[in-house]
């Protein structure tokens, strides 16, 4: 019973925060609401017996990627440039966009949900197949990453290096030595 309560609490927070992210005019508020959504998702991961993924979500997403977004929003002084020069009305209040967009979003939800639930026993409780001790061991995860998935690990580290160099090069001003 308390599990169901926390699940619905976190789910409502995630959906509410995500909807507000796409509906806010001010990008600064969007970033902060997305951090709240990530926090809710982290709670859901803990409920799914994945503590390492939950903490990594906070460290990587909420603690690093969102700081990057925040810096860019502040650097570009984005709140004053929210496209208000280009369209008078807020996009979600233009009737055509809002109606068709919402219809398409609902269709997408129905289609995705029916595809995902092609799993045969989709009403079984998560966690009925095995107990938690085998699943949430960080040591087992580390062992698996460094033996079975070594190639992906090394490729990802090269990817991050390339992304770092690329970001520095792309954001450089013209005419800098």
């Amino acid at each position, binding site marked *: 019973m308390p*599990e169901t309560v926390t*699940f619905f609490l976190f789910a409502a927070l995630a*959906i509410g925060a*995500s909807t507000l*992210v*796409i509906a*806010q005019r001010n990008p600064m508020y969007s970033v902060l609401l997305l951090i709240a*959504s990530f926090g809710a*998702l982290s709670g*859901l*991961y803990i*409920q*799914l*017996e*994945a503590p*390492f*993924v939950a903490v*990594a979500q906070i460290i*990587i*997403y909420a603690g690093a*990627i969102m700081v990057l*977004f925040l810096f*860019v*929003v502040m650097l*570009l002084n984005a709140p004053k*440039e929210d*496209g208000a020069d*280009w369209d008078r009305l807020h*996009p979600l209040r233009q009737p055509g966009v809002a109606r068709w*967009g*919402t219809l*398409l*979003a609902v269709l*997408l*939800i129905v289609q*995705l949900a029916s595809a*995902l*639930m092609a799993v045969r026993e989709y*009403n*079984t*409780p*998560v*966690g*009925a197949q*095995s107990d938690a001790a085998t*699943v949430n061991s960080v040591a*087992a*995860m580390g062992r*698996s990453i460094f033996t079975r998935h070594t190639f*992906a690990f090394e490729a*990802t580290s090269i*990817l*991050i290096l390339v*992304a*770092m160099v690329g*970001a*520095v*090069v*792309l*954001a450089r001003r013209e005419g800098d030595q």
Partner: protein
Amino acid sequence: MIPLSYYLILSATLFAIGAAGVFMRRNLITILLSVEIMLNAVNLTFVAFGRYAGDLDGQIITFFVMTVAAAEAAVGLALVIALFRHRESLNPDAFTSLKW
């Protein structure tokens, strides 16, 4: 205990919200944020299925998805900064010089 279908419907909803954000918003940074929402929805699906199947593969894939998302956000934001310096606008409709 929470049935698996609850997690799947939640992640489908989050994915659709992210997709709607990408289509409807006219601000490059908000579009990138919506892409992050979609990636998170996918992460949730992976972890839920991983727990359902009883092994760690779902969490491992999630770990890699997060890393790739970080790299993609960094490069995407660098591009946004470069574009902003060029056109002084964050609206994707401002960058139409390749349109015929």
